[in-house]
C-alpha cells in the first residue's frame, strides 16, 4: 500500500477576478521510502497541490473535490466531523508524520524569533521533552544539517544567517521528528548555484538516513534525474504524464514532457535553455480540452474539445494525450 494516495484532487481559489482553478482533478501515489519528483513550469499547480495535502492552503483556497489518504487514513477535511476535528488531527501529523521544506528560506522563518525556539517548537509540539532536552536535540539537528557552531547560533535570529544556512534550518525543522513523508517545494530555487548542490546533498543524506518518502517539487529536470525514482509532470493544474525516471527521460509520451526535455541545458552544445514558446492557460477559465493545446506542436482538432484520458503505458508510465489514440486508430486502419 502506498503512503500517500491522492485521488481526483481539485483546488480552487477565490479571487477578485473570479475563481482560479489551480489544481484540476489530479491523482497520484507516493510509496513508502519512494522519491517522487513533480516537475512543471511556474503556475502549473505544484505547490498548491502539496499545500492541499498538508492542509496549508491560503485562506481563499479550498479543496473542491477528491480525496487524500495518508498511511491508509483518509485526511481530506470532508472526512472529519468538522474543521476543528480536521485541524486537531492534522496538527498531530504536520511536522511529525509529514513535513514540508519551503521555496524561499528568506521569508519562511519568523524574523522576530530566535532560531533555537523555531526549531525546538516543532520538537516540543510532538514530544514530551524538557526545555534542555529540546535544545540539545535542536543542536544535534543543526549539526546534522551542516550548521557550524550550533550552540552559539541557536540564540541568533534569521537575519544573521545566509540563505543557504536558513534553508538548512528549515530542513532541520522539517526533519526534526523523522517524518515518513517530506515534501520539498523547490528547496534550492532561491539559492546561489554553488549552495544549491550543498543543500540538495543535505536533503539526500537525511532522506537516506531516515528512509522517508520525499516529494521533490522542482523546475529542474537535472535535480529530478539525480534524486527521484518517479516523476510527475504537471501542466495547467493537471498531471499530464507520470513515469519512472527512465521512462520520462527516455520514452516521454507527452509533447509537453518532450518540450521540457529539449529545454534541458546541454553543456556540450553550450546553448541556453530554450523554453517552450507561449504561455500557460488562464486558470480562471481553464480550457475544456487539453491544457497544452495552444502551445503543442502536434495539436489536433479534438485536443481543444475534449480532455484526453490517462493512458497506461506500463505499470508506472501514464500520459494524457490524444496522440496515442490517433496512433492506435492509424494502426487499426493499417492493420
Amino acid at each position: 500500500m502506498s503512503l500517500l494516495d491522492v485521488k481526483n484532487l481539485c483546488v480552487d481559489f477565490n479571487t477578485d477576478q473570479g475563481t482560479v482553478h489551480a489544481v484540476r482533478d489530479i491523482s497520484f501515489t507516493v510509496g513508502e521510502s519512494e522519491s517522487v519528483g513533480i516537475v512543471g513550469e511556474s503556475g502549473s499547480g505544484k505547490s498548491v497541490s502539496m499545500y492541499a495535502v498538508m492542509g496549508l492552503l491560503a485562506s481563499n483556497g479550498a479543496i473542491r473535490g477528491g480525496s487524500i489518504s495518508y498511511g491508509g487514513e483518509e485526511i481530506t477535511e470532508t472526512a472529519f466531523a468538522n474543521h476543528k476535528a480536521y485541524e486537531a488531527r492534522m496538527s498531530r501529523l504536520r511536522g511529525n508524520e509529514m513535513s514540508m521544506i519551503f521555496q524561499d528560506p528568506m521569508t519562511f522563518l519568523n524574523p522576530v524569533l530566535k532560531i533555537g525556539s523555531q526549531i525546538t517548537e516543532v520538537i516540543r509540539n510532538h514530544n514530551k521533552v524538557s526545555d534542555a532536552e529540546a535544545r540539545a536535540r535542536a543542536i544535534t539537528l543543526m549539526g546534522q544539517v551542516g550548521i557550524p557552531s550550533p550552540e552559539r547560533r541557536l540564540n541568533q535570529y534569521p537575519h544573521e544567517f545566509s540563505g543557504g544556512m536558513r534553508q538548512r534550518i528549515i530542513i532541520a525543522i522539517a526533519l526534526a521528528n523523522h517524518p515518513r513523508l517530506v515534501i520539498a517545494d523547490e528547496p534550492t530555487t532561491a539559492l546561489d548555484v554553488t549552495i544549491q548542490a550543498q543543500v540538495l546533498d543535505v536533503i539526500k543524506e537525511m532522506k537516506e538516513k531516515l528512509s522517508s518518502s520525499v516529494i521533490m517539487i522542482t523546475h529542474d529536470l537535472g535535480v529530478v534525474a539525480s534524486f527521484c525514482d518517479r516523476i510527475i509532470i504537471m501542466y495547467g493544474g493537471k498531471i499530464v504524464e507520470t513515469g519512472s525516471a527512465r521512462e520520462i527521460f527516455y520514452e516521454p509520451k507527452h509533447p509537453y514532457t518532450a518540450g521540457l526535455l529539449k529545454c534541458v541545458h546541454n553543456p556540450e552544445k553550450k546553448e541556453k535553455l530554450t523554453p517552450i514558446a507561449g504561455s500557460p492557460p488562464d486558470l480562471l477559465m481553464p480550457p475544456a480540452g487539453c491544457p497544452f493545446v495552444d502551445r503543442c506542436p502536434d495539436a489536433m482538432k479534438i485536443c481543444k474539445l475534449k480532455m484526453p484520458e490517462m493512458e497506461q503505458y506500463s505499470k508506472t508510465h501514464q500520459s494524457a494525450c490524444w496522440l496515442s489514440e490517433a496512433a492506435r486508430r492509424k494502426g487499426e486502419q493499417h492493420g
Partner: protein
Amino acid sequence: MLKYIIKRLTVGVVTLFLLATITFFLMHVIPGSPFAGETTKLPVKVLERLYEKYGLDKPLSEQYIMYMKNAVRGDFGVSIYRKGKSITKIISNGLPYTARLGLVSVCFALVTGIFLGTVAAFTKRKWLSNFVLILATAGVSMPGFLLSVLLLLLFGVVLQWLPFVGLESPLHYILPAVGMAFAPISMIARLVRSSLREVMKQDYMILARSKGTPEKLVIWRHGLKNAMLPVITYAGPMIATLLTGSFVIESLYSIPGIGAEFVTSITNRDYTMIMALTILYGSFIIIANIITDILNAVIDPRIKLGK
C-alpha cells in the same frame, strides 16, 4: 543599550535647547505683549514699571541668557499673566489631573483599539468588520470636540448617567477619557486590523502551521509580535500627546489641568508660561520617541539601535 539611551538623551537635551531658543525668539518677534490687552487702561508709567519688573525692558539677548540660566537650574520664573504666580507651582498643580486623565485615556485607547482591531481582522462576520471600519473612519474624520460635546450632552445632561464636572471619582473619568481616546482608538483599530491581516499572509505563518502548531498558538507566538510593530510606532507619540492633555476636553469637563494652558498662554503672550510648556511637551515627545525606538528594537532584532 545604556550607551544608546545616553546618546539619545544627549541628543534630546540638545533638541530641547534648540526648541527653547527658537520658541524664545519667535514669541518675541510675534506682535503683541503680555500687557497688550490692558494698555488702554494702563498709564505709561505703570507699563514701564511692569516691563522693568519682569525684565522685559532689557535687550532680548540679555533676557534670553537670563532665562536659560534660570531654566537650567529648574527655575522657570513666574507667570506674567497670572500676576507673578510661580510657573512651577501652576504646572505642578495642574499636571497631575492632566496626566491621570491622560493615562486612563492611553490605557483605554490601547485596550479598546487592539481589541477592536483584532476582532475586525479575524471575524468571519463581514458586518462586524465593516462596523469597526466605519467606527474607525468616524474617529479619524469627526472633530474631537464635536464628539465630546455630544457625549456630554447625551450621557451627562440628558440621561444624567455620568458626572461631567471635574475628576473627583472614577466615574468622572469616563466621559473625558472616551473623548480623548476616540481618535486614537480608531487609528489603533485600523492599524491592528491591517497589520494582523498582513501578518496572517506571511510565509512564516505557513511554516509555523507546518510544524503542527495549533492555529491559536501560531497567531499568538508568531503573529502578534510582528503585528505589534506598526502599532508601537504609532502609540509612542500618541501617548505623549494624550499625556499633555486637551484644551477642549479640559474646558468642557471643568478639569483643572494644564491642557488648556498652552492655548491660553499663547493668546495672552504669557512668555514664561509658553516657554515652560514648550519645554515640557518637547521632553514628553522626545522621551516617547526614545521609548518607541527601544521597544521596536526589543521586538524586532533586525533593528539595530544606534545605526
